């Protein structure tokens, strides 16, 4: 814009889509458009919220926009009333004003349930450093004007907007009357709710969603025109008196707060007197060295520690490490198992602080990529805790720092495809069943046919007017924020009241509060958060370690296991694909990768965890890596720099960090640019932001002498990676748990399975599958018994001195822990002698019935039907008849083998008796079917017939159109590969069968003996065992 604008104008009243369902543009779009129109400033004034400001700030920064961004908020005195009403805009003049604004928002929000607020006139008393704009409304006769004008004489204005409505004149007259009455100046406002007039259609739709009616019935609730958008300066000049326009600029000039002023002050109490943060960290690290390296710190490691400490000191991150240290120390004192991960977690400092158990001697290669100064990225430490005990950590944080200083980060829940289809469809009057059909039928993983085309084939007339509107609206609405939710565990802890930094509001969960920013916002402002996450495997490992100690007298910690040398026998087990229950490598895909990758050391596990992910698979990195590892393909590097980045993964980028680093060393990206690339990768599916990097990346590499082909391939790999790239730093921390769980499985199987079972629900397999696996490994499993079982599964010494697994009451459906505890409390040492003795405990009858069906009372009454019959007799409940035994109770016929299975599955979800398939086999119903164990003897490419229970159907997005079905029989699991054509032709069986018989071709990889069946004919045999309640894990 070279010519001087007609007027200077600042828009001081503008809502973004963070005023949920009230406005129709992203904050980024608003700031961009206001800048393009030549506005001097834009105040983002979402309703009782600053949730959108960071996005606008970040956008302005990234695109070097000239416009000034003002932080403010709009307050309605009756927010739950839908009629037009007066409002107050509060703008932050400086840092203190911003704190006052945040506190006002926190106060108004914390009064109400999640998502709502209530503000009273007296709440506006504390806004000395803010500027206020009062928007009076002719239909309100409140005293707000009088109150405010007496309090804030010199920084209060009356706001007046013109949007060419029939009421403009009335409003203007009213504003002028008020201005005269209170002697206040008037300022021009746009009351903006969309950045461009084109968003009217979306705004009308949002209104329809808000009031829950179709658009055509919304009538006057819709805006009459498009004047609520950011308008050109020419138009502004025509609409308002010049003085009003000039006033807007005067106000904007007084607002001098920028988000970059926010700095984070760490809690001071973590540093004891006599120390500062750095010296205390030094002290702790020195102490840690003695624990971690009892034989003395190797020289190279000592050097790294010094390097890390000086970096931490220069960046000022010492407090952050101390905060995390404090948390894990608490966990340690409570015997809660934990493990840190993230870029900074894998530092030697963190190893010494006992934040992580990743032994630096095992994977030295990682430590180069500790916090990098050049990447301007704040340190990242996530700590996983036992999933059943994470709440204790959270409560500790609240207790230690107080609710005013600690809160969870928010997660912005946005409209996704399904919710957008549903809401837009309803607004356009499309019937609900039709919408559900759309949603259920659209395959979002089908990249070859876009969802719009798929909707067309489902009967949406995409040429009709409504059809076109629908497609356009669904497209635009996706990515719009819907509401704020709580982050899974990201805590922000501050020195002073948090509400001076960012508003706090109530979460849906009682006693939880969240701040108004999400983790990306915090990262943009370089505010640090501590992630307190929950992980089931940690619970399992802690339990297993406890049992190892109890039954074998061996006391171990996670670090003890990693400190031992790599155990070849453990790796040998994994190389066989024998990994049920082992952390991260137990899925079907991982299991079939294990024999191919043949992990033999810790770093192999790090790769194994990261490689079986959609990112590397879609980026086509798996096969080159496997070929190179097997020595079938040469490894070459186009340059020394690239070699430095990719050498440890044989020239194939597998980790997210490698891709980022490549962009830096090969394409010359700066640290900041690389960080933006990382974020764009995380979001590109939603925003398509990656396109902007293509040119820079490819050109940068070509300029540095790389071949265009190499550059293009790398870009394609980045695209494939997308949001699914897995960071090495996380993979390394996970690998610790993978190794520890595999180690336990190999050396202490009884403790391992027992611990996993007691930590359910977790992991990939059901209790039934875990127990079958345990028995195949020779572990004896004993049934639930009223006289032997505890609530949890437990270990029992048997005559052969081996430990056996005794099923616990927790496996029985319908029983509650509180009642079982009562039962256990009164259980005599030698056990109950008969049913009446148990009945004297007066447990709810249903509890005993459940135990009867689980066959836990079999020691009293023959079979379970009889036990139930006996229990059901309600005469036993009558006190007077208590001793009257039924003289001659009816004898019910006992269950047959099928009944037993049915009852077992219904009450335990598993059976220690025959496997259902074995039952069918013995009944001669599966003639010609091979069992999984027999399959081993069949040659590659032979025609086989097999049958099993369908325990899982998976159609990974990475395998185009292929479905993997897992069939379970009495000897193991067989993998079935179903091609799309086969699936389509036999759709019904493919989708419905619970027990499946298949004819197909057996395929075996000569290198690693990985076997599967390519399905030909599918036959549904579910009718053979109709009553059996089998559930399958389908399409997860």
């Amino acid at each position, binding site marked *: 814009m070279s010519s001087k604008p007609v007027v200077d104008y600042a828009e001081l009243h503008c809502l973004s889509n963070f005023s949920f369902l009230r406005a129709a543009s992203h904050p980024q779009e608003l700031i961009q458009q206001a800048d393009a129109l030549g506005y001097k400033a834009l105040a983002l004034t979402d309703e009782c919220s600053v949730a959108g400001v960071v996005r606008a700030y970040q956008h302005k920064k990234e695109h070097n926009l000239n416009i000034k961004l003002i932080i403010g908020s709009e307050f309605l005195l009756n927010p739950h009333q839908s009629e037009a009403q007066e409002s107050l805009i509060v703008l932050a003049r400086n840092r203190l004003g911003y704190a006052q604004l945040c506190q006002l928002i926190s106060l108004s929000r914390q009064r109400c349930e999640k998502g709502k607020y209530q503000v009273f006139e007296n709440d506006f008393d504390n806004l000395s450093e803010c500027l206020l704009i009062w928007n009076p409304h002719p239909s309100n006769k409140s005293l707000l004007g009088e109150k405010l004008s007496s309090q804030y004489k010199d920084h209060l204005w009356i706001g007046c907007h013109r949007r*060419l*409505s*029939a*009421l*403009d*004149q009335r409003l203007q007259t009213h504003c002028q009357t008020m201005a005269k009455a209170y002697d206040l100046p008037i300022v021009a406002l746009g009351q903006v709710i969309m950045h461009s007039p084109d968003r*009217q*259609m979306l705004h*009308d739709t949002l209104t329809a969603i808000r009031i829950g009616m179709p*658009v*055509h*019935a*919304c*009538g*006057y609730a*819709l*805006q*009459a*025109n*498009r*004047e609520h958008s950011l308008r050109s300066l020419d138009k502004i000049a025509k609409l308002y008196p010049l003085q009003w326009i000039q006033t807007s600029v005067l106000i904007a000039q007084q607002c001098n707060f920028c988000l970059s002023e926010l700095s984070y002050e760490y809690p001071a109490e973590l540093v004891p007197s006599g120390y500062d943060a750095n010296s205390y960290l030094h002290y702790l690290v020195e102490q840690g060295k003695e624990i971690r390296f009892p034989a003395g710190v190797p020289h190279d490691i000592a050097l790294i520690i010094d390097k890390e400490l000086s970096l931490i000191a220069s960046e000022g991150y010492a407090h952050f490490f101390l905060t995390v240290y404090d948390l894990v120390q608490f966990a340690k004192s409570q015997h809660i198992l934990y493990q840190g991960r993230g870029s900074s977690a894998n530092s030697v400092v963190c190893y010494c602080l006992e934040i992580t158990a990743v032994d630096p001697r095992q994977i030295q290669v990682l430590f180069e990529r500790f916090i990098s100064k050049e990447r301007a990225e704040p340190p990242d430490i996530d700590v996983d805790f036992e999933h059943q005990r994470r709440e204790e950590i959270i409560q500790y944080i609240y207790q230690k720092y107080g609710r005013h200083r600690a809160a969870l980060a928010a997660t912005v829940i946005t409209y996704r495809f399904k919710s957008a289809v549903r809401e837009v469809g309803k607004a*356009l*009057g499309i*019937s*609900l*069943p*039709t919408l*559900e*059909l759309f949603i*259920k*039928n659209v395959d979002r993983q089908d990249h070859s046919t876009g969802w719009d085309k798929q909707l067309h*084939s*489902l*009967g949406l007339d995409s040429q009709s*007017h*409504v059809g076109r*509107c629908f497609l356009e609206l669904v497209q635009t609405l996706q990515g719009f924020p819907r509401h704020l939710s709580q982050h899974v565990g990201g805590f922000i802890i501050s020195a002073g009241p948090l509400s001076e930094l960012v508003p706090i509001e109530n979460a849906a969960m009682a006693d939880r509060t969240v701040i108004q920013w999400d983790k990306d916002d915090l990262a943009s402002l370089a505010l640090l958060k501590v992630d307190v996450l929950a992980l089931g495997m940690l619970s399992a490992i802690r339990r297993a370690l406890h049992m190892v100690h109890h039954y074998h007298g061996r006391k171990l910690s996670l670090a003890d296991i990693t400190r031992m040398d790599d155990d070849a026998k453990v790796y040998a087990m994994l190389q066989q694909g024998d990994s049920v229950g082992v952390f991260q490598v137990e899925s079907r895909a991982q299991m079939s990768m294990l024999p191919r990758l043949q992990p033999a050391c810790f770093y192999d596990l790090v790769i194994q965890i990261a490689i079986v992910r959609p990112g590397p698979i879609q980026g086509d990195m798996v096969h080159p890596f496997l070929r190179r590892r097997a020595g079938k393909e040469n490894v070459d590097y186009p340059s020394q720099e690239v070699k430095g980045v990719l050498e440890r993964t044989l020239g194939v980028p597998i980790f997210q960090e490698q891709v980022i680093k490549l962009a830096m060393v090969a394409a010359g990206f700066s640290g900041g640019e690389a960080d933006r690339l990382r974020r764009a990768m995380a979001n590109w599916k939603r925003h398509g932001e990656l396109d902007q990097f293509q040119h820079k990346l490819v050109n940068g590499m070509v300029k540095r002498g790389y071949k265009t082909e190499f550059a293009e391939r790398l870009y394609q790999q980045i695209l494939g990676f997308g949001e699914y790239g897995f960071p090495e730093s996380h993979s390394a921390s996970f690998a610790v748990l993978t190794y520890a769980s595999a180690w336990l499985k190999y050396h202490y199987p009884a403790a391992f399975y027992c611990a996993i079972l007691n930590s359910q629900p977790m992991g990939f397999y059901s209790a039934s599958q875990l127990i079958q696996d345990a028995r195949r490994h020779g572990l004896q499993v004993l049934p639930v018994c009223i006289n032997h079982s505890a609530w949890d599964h437990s270990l029992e010494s048997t005559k052969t001195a081996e430990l056996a697994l005794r099923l616990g009451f927790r496996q029985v459906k319908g029983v509650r822990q509180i009642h079982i505890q009562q039962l256990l409390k009164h259980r005599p040492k030698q056990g109950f002698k008969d049913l009446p003795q148990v009945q004297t405990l007066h447990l709810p009858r249903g509890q005993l*019935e459940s135990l009867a*069906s689980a066959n836990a009372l079999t020691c009293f009454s023959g079979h379970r*039907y009889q036990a*139930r*019959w006996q229990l*059901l*007799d*309600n*005469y036993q409940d009558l006190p007077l008849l208590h001793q009257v035994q039924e003289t001659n109770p*009816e004898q*019910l*016929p*006992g*269950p047959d083998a099928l*009944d037993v299975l049915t*009852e077992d599955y*219904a009450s335990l979800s598993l059976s220690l008796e025959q496997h259902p398939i074995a039952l069918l086999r013995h009944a001669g119903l599966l003639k010609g079917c091979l069992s999984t164990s027999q399959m081993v003897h069949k040659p590659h490419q032979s025609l086989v017939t097999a049958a099993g229970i369908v325990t899982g159907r998976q159609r990974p997005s990475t395998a185009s159109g292929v479905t993997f079905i897992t069939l379970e029989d009495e000897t193991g699991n067989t993998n079935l590969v179903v091609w799309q054509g086969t699936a389509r032709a036999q*759709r*019904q069986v493919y*989708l*419905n069968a619970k027990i499946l018989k298949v004819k197909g071709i057996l395929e075996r990889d000569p290198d690693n003996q990985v076997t599967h069946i390519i399905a030909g004919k599918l036959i549904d045999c579910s009718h053979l065992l109709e009553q059996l309640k089998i559930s399958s894990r389908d399409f997860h």
Partner: protein
Amino acid sequence: MQWLYLYFPNLQLDSLLHQQAYNQACVLVDKNEVVQTNSEARQLGIKIGTGLGQAALLSAQLKVIAYEPKQEQRLLAQLAQRLYQTSATLYLDPPQGLLLQTSDMLRLYEGLAPYWQQLQQPLMERGLHYHYASAHSPLAAQVLARAGNDRLLTHQGEATGLLHQLPIHSAGLNYKLCLQLERLGLNTLGQAQALPRSALGQRLGQTLVTYLQQLEDSSAPSRPRYQPPEHFRQRLELLYEIEHSTALRFPLKRLLSDLEAFLAPRQLQAAGLILGLEYREHTSERVYIGCSDGEYRAESWLGLSMLRLEQLQLQAPIIAISLKTKGQMPWAPLSAQLFEPLGGKLTAGQLISRLQNKLGDHAVQQVYLRDDHRPERSFYQGAPQSSYQAHQATTYLRPSLLFTLPQALNHKPDQQWCILSGPERIQSGWWDNVSICRDYFIARNPTGQVCWLFRTPREEWFLHGYFS
């Protein structure tokens, strides 16, 4: 006593599909679960209880319709109304069953077979799927029919034998009781019956004992038997939206034949019919078809109705129609009325019908307000309703005289005009593809009239109305 139970597992879907041949998979869905299926859907493996997602995977072209229990109840009542001609004692068992007492009817029809034939006729005409069973007790007939027995049993022994073998889960017991029995290994009704009642009652409660007693109890249910309504009123939901009035002929014919079947046995006729047309967008229209001399035959009414409908312009696609009589009278008209003087005062309703009779229905219209920013759409004309109360929903200033078509002004208003207020910009209406974009002004013209003018983006000026 002998009882017959008719069970219609597909009532709503059958009656929808009967209107029009449809050879694609089609299901009714309630809370995302399939509740009724046609044969094409069943062939694809879609069953009752299949989730909508699973059903959609099984058939990409699946037609999905929402299950409406109210609609099904209406259908059941309509069916009962029809069967009442054949069977005097019948009971509704909503949502999908009818119980008929047959003993008395057998004498009339001289045997079960001819009686059954009479009964089936209307069921087949309606294309209904049904299961049936006759037995010695209402409950036994019901249980056997619902289990798909489809036999007319005359001896109690036969029914008892069949009941004996019936799996517990088909016995119509509540889910909890059923589960309790199965978990005792009692998988057939016979196994439960074999145990002493007192022992069963003691353990499983009185419900089961009552149930077992009722299986044997031949007496009539305690609830009141079906009484036909005094006035005819019926509604028909359409499988397809109908856009042309002439296409209403087929569904209307069905309603009219039901009308005839209602009126004829009562020796009644109707002086007028009110045909309700339900539009897609939750509005409806009522069309009055009069025949002052009275008529009951479907054919005559169809002729009259089609004449009336041909003139009718449908406002939107129709999703359902309903029919009710207005002025039922005995076949022999009372001639005395002819000489009675007309009353001096008319209610609004009477005036409307008087005007309609004189001028034709379409000549009498009423203006209704509608919430819409677009002036042309802020009101509409429709069939008159005497009870309509106009309400002013907006505070906007609008002229009392609005032209149907805005009149173009030859030139821009000059100095002789005086702009009183404006512009008010109205730019709205994308959803029905009738968008407008206008700047409205209130202005006084040289002759002193207060006018409502607007300007288009192309700077054309129009006069749209006058203020009073």
